[in-house]
């Protein structure tokens, strides 16, 4: 198995408050890694370290995070975020932009002006995120005037448009209805052919359905990391077992 991101002895802080302790994990390439664990255990903080959004809210880290062997904590965060995209828990399309411009935003605002270049990318990404058929006749409508599930797929399309290598998803379906959730899960399944995906989820069935690997976080530490089947069928740790059986958390 090829490694995309290798995290070594990562510690994350909010001010002086340490919320991640000594995290080490190898994230495999073109697979889906699910992060599970009870609320407040540091899942969001962890994935936000991977695209350095953690420092945007004033957090700091110690340790190494290697992206293709290169320490991303020492590179330019703006360039890094084009390689490591992120989908947030609540759909957050840009309300002042059309559906088309929402998808094109990452390109346009990074200086790509050529419409001939942008249009096919927008179409491709909307198709990839399974939204094209629903919005192809209303691309100039505001990105905020579609349903929540459509908005979230729009946000995924927007992330795909900058052509990242890794996609981080923080509970991408927790604000959505079951049908939209299924659509997002199908999408994740399609996307892993081309992208490395890390998804945070509170939904055990979802983790079991979409992921190849699962990491169980508890109180800022990784308790267990293994193939998803193993974690859900025969976890080696008692705490993991209790959690995936729904006995706490």
């Amino acid at each position, binding site marked *: 198995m090829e490694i995309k991101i290798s995290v070594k002895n990562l510690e994350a802080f909010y001010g002086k408050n340490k919320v991640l302790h000594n995290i080490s994990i190898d994230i495999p390439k073109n697979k889906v890694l699910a992060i599970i664990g009870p609320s407040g255990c540091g899942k969001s903080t962890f994935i936000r370290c991977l*695209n350095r*959004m953690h420092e*945007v809210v004033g957090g700091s880290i110690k340790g190494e995070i290697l992206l293709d062997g290169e320490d991303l904590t020492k590179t330019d965060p*703006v*360039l*890094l*975020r*084009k390689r490591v*995209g*992120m989908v*947030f828990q*609540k759909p*957050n*399309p*840009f*309300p*002042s*932009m*059309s559906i088309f411009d929402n998808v094109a*935003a*990452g390109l346009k*605002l*990074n200086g790509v002006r050529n419409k001939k270049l942008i249009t096919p990318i927008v179409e491709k990404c909307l198709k990839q995120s399974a939204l094209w058929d629903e919005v192809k006749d209303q691309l100039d*409508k*505001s990105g905020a*005037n579609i349903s929540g599930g459509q908005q979230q797929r729009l*946000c995924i399309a*927007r*992330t795909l448009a*900058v052509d990242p290598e890794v996609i981080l998803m923080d509970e991408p379906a927790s604000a959505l209805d079951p049908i939209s959730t299924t659509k997002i899960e199908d999408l994740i399944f399609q996307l892993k052919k081309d992208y490395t995906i890390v998804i945070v989820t509170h939904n055990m069935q979802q983790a079991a359905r979409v992921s190849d690997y699962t990491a169980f976080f508890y109180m800022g530490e990784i308790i267990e990391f293994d193939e998803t089947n193993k974690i859900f069928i025969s976890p080696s740790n008692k705490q993991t077992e209790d959690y995936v059986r729904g006995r706490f958390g």
Partner: protein
Amino acid sequence: MENDMKKSNLFYYRKKITSFIMMSLTFIAALAAIIPLVLIFYYTISKGITYLNIDFFVAMPKPVGESGGGMANAIVGTLILIGIGGAIGIPVGIMTGTYLSEFGNNKFGYIVRFLTDVLSGIPSIVVGVVAYTMVVVPMKHFSALAGGIALGILMIPTITRTTEEMIKLVPHSLREAGLALGIPKWKTTLSIVLKTAWKGIATGVLLGLSRAAGETAPLLFTALGNRFWSTSIGQPIASLTVYIYDYAKSPFEDWNQQAWTAALVLILLISLLSLLFRIITRSKYKTN
């Protein structure tokens, strides 16, 4: 059982009556708030309409003693003055407001915020005196530029504070979305945050411009006034408000009437400005 019914009915009616009284009170308060507005409109229209003709917009004021004439120079003058004021006040106000909301969580931001509050409380005549000392005295004569600068300074607090408040209303998640796409922070602020907030900011700008258009005191010793046609920013310039001031206190019945017409035109001008802003900021998108 019946007793209980009665009790609950009583309770129900009491609630209904309270609700009715409260509603009436707020209605009366709203009515009281619009009465002055209605009176202002009534007087300016009924008194100002006499002279409201084409001449008023295209002709120059007649010499003392002759009746008729118009205020073409003052209308253009007012537009030039708020134009100069806007050229100063709008960019400074928007940039300051943006700074305060996005980067102003520090001591410097606190000081700037405090000073803009102080500035908004300073009487406009004092700002006029400052513009007089800074511009009129060194230039050795009154000028449209001096008047425009005074008006520009007066606009800054309104535009700054509205911009700051409007930008703060933009959800944090949009900033994060921008950054997470690899868009640099300054560009996220400009193309996403400001773009999302711009309708609210436009309202602040409109408010600033309208206030400035209605100012008289700071113009008296900066732009001064001019009975002749002038569009030069280096020369004294006429304005509707200064005309209202001069004509309303003059002994000539004819001028008093024209003061009312000038007031009416000023109101129309400001209404037109709001209408223009409404059209510009009209949403591109149909809401479902």
